[in-house]
């Protein structure tokens, strides 16, 4: 199967964080752990401000530094769809992946003592459903699908001011700004 990715339409995002909370609900995340995060950026000056919100989870990168730096190989990239997941049988909770990821995707679970992260809602996808963040977005600003298709449809930009350069890990994300 093809490498999967997310498309984020920054021009439609109103920063309501429904995607964040629906992800927390779906994955039963306690306060402090967020598989998806919304960052707000302001520039310009009164009375011509520029306001942008960017929703980011795991970008399931082509060169995921979390995988490359995992000492136990718990963090790995699935062959079938390129989704980066954690093998909890191997994970020792050392948090190296957290430090390595430029996007903040790996999130430490204190109770478990292990890393957790966005897995594109594999269990929902197996039932033919979309990831919770995609299905919940009131502005329809998030899409999920094969990255090739998303790029064909929306272009191949993966950078925006405030986000680390895509040249570091080659994220499978498309951003419209």
């Amino acid at each position, binding site marked *: 199967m093809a490498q999967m990715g997310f498309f984020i339409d920054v021009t439609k995002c109103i920063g309501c964080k*429904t995607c964040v909370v629906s992800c*927390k609900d779906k994955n*039963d995340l306690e306060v402090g752990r967020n598989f998806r995060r919304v960052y707000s950026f302001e520039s*310009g000056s009164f009375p011509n401000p520029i306001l942008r919100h960017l929703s980011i989870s795991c970008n399931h990168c082509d060169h995921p530094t979390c995988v490359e730096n995992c000492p136990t190989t718990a963090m790995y990239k699935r062959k079938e769809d390129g989704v980066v997941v954690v093998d909890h049988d191997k994970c020792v909770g050392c948090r190296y992946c957290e430090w390595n990821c430029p996007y903040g995707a790996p999130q430490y679970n204190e109770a478990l003592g292990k890393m957790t992260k966005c897995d594109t809602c594999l269990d929902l996808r197996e039932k033919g459903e979309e990831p919770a963040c995609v299905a919940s977005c009131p*502005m329809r600003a998030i899409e999920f699908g094969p990255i090739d298709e998303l790029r064909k449809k929306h272009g191949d930009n993966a950078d925006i001011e405030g986000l680390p350069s895509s040249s570091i890990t080659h994220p499978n994300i498309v951003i419209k700004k």
Partner: protein
Amino acid sequence: MNKVLVKDGVVVRQKTDDTHADSPDFPQQRGCLRGRSQRQQVFGADRLKYPMKRKNWKPGGGKKELRGKDQWVRISWDEALDTVSSEIKRISNEYGNEAIWATGSGEMTKVLSENGGCTTDYGTTSWGAWYWAPTMMGVAEGWNELGINDRIDLRNSQLIVLWGVNPASSSPGSPTYNYLQAKKAGAQFISIDPKYTESAQVFDADWVPLRPGTDHALALAIMYTLLDEDDPKNNPLIDWDFLNKCTVGFDKDHMPKGADPKDNFKDYLLGTLDGEPKSPEWATEICGVAPEDIRKLARQIGSTERVALLTGWGPARINDGEGWVQAFSTLGFMTGHMGRSGKMTGVSCHRSSGNGGPWLVKPGSSGYTSPENPVTNKVNHNEIFKAILDGKYHQKGEGVRKANIQLIYHQYNATLQTRTSINDGIKAHRKVEFVVTNSYNLTTNAKYSDVVLPVTSEWEREGGLLTGNREILIAHSNIVDPLYEAKSDVWIAKELLKRLGKDPKKLYPVSEKQAFFNELATSTVITKDGKDYEPLVEITAKDIKDWNVDGKPQKGRIALQEFLDRGIYQVERKPGDNYGHIAYQDFVENPNEQPLGTPSGKFEIYCETIHKESKKGWTEISPIPKYVPKTVGYEDTFDDWGKKKKGKYPFQVVTPHYLRRSHTVFDNVPWLREAMPNPVFINKTDAKTRGIKTGDTVMLYNDHGKTLRPAETTETLMPGVIALPHGAWPEINEEDGIDKAGADNMLTKPVTTGLGTSGWNTVICNIEKYKGEPLKEDVKWEQRIVFPEGEV
């Protein structure tokens, strides 16, 4: 909408609408973050578990000064109900039924009315000045009657003016997405607002910042410009045909019967009589919009053929706000942006934001009844705490009446923190003899009570119906058994009635289940031709048997069980269907044959009714939209208006809706506290001059109270304006009187103006960096847990 996955009686996950494929014409009704956190709301650690009473309460009040800070003692339901009913009887016998105040509305008002009556309250709440004034002049108030076209027609508008309209924060769910379809269809947007909102951002709107409460002045200057620059042949800006046929009061030749011709609006605008033209140069001093920008607005609104001129209730939640309602409406009349496709002028907010018109699907009725309330004491929201403290208030239409309120019964509302001056409210709550609240969390109302009765959430009840917009009907049905000892309000009502010696069957002739069934059975949906209504729910004999209720089989659009399983019925829309709506179309096309309900049968720029009614109110309102400086408005930030010398309270405060909360509900939910940290927003330049940086703890203060918040400095807010999000639950340090939560009504002054309007957005204050200990993030504060799990 929300759907839940239940395992072993507990909700483990939620999801939103997936009953059909999503499209702009037929969108899924997607919930916002608050709905998505509802299982934390229902199953939260701070859920109230048992009936409880204040340790130091006793009949007559006990140590009243300890309300809000006393210990709680668990009691049984029998003791709780006996206590409440005994106090109702004791207080009504000793002081009369006027001594009992049922806040807001609900089941308890019915109980107390049946028991001989109670004092009630009223006010303009969300509407502000749109509550009474608009219908007097012939326009819709925006809730029961809608003055804008439907969402599919909105796509025909070329220019959409969002005047204090911010669906992204105030109408979560579909509205912002609906407006986006108009943008895709080519509409240009203008946002007139003290704040550059997320809506302005997503629609790429031209932002016209203006000072809170000064919209009236801006509207007058725009209209002045229309008049000044209009040339019917070469530069048409005014729809004279519309003005002449559809309105009265614009000029001396079109006055309503009995009005003095010299009191026409045109001469007022030109300053013919008072020598003061309401020009852009006049207005700029008040509203802060540059004259050239005012002229630009006039040209855009006046020369564009199809304009949606939309406002929210927010700009009208001001003191002396009726004139603004008159002025905004008159701007629509002058430009003729009404009654035709793509043309609309009116309120666009809440469930009907961007989507006006009659309901396509209507909820039915339960069969419960409401008794008449023999007590006629009705206290305006701005006077209710003062009425308790001072023993008198203004009965609208009558004059001063005595008040001696000794019992407060809080229903499902947040009166103590959503009326002007929380500090006055607390004093009032510590004066009366008894306070009781039905609640499922320790809300502000509950916290300052003597007895708190734990109630079920909607998830624990039989079910009910909800309209989220004109195209849908949501059916919520029972999800889990009641938690701990929670009971429904109806159950409490019945039990109190018994103890008061009244027959519960009079008000509640059927069970809650039968009531829900009745609602379903009597719901209706628009017929395919768009002309009539027919039963929505198909009910079979088997349904009636399975439910064990009374009823008759009927045909309907959707089967009963399917409706409940889906949780929603939505009318499918598409362009050109039979369900569209053009507001006022019938009248505009045939003003003489289809008159409006006003005395003149037309839109009344000169409205004698408003003027006459204001004499029964608090301050007199002119029949035409004359400008008056708003009480506690921009002008009041100055010691010397002439010399522009600022006073003690140089800043204006607006209180926008905030996505962590629906008003006050959900403020306690941890996921939402984390997602939405609730800062106070201050303009970057203002912050800099006061040495304030983003993240600093700041104190806002005025004569009425003090409150703390972390600051967020921004270029998206007009200088001189502070945005303090609405609805935070107060946390007041009794030693210094400082609230740390940023509760907006710590700063509001109890003022009633005009017809009885509340002015939440006419507030002034000062701000400084807080010298005490910086605030920790709200999400790290202790929850209001009364009986921790395992404790009694």
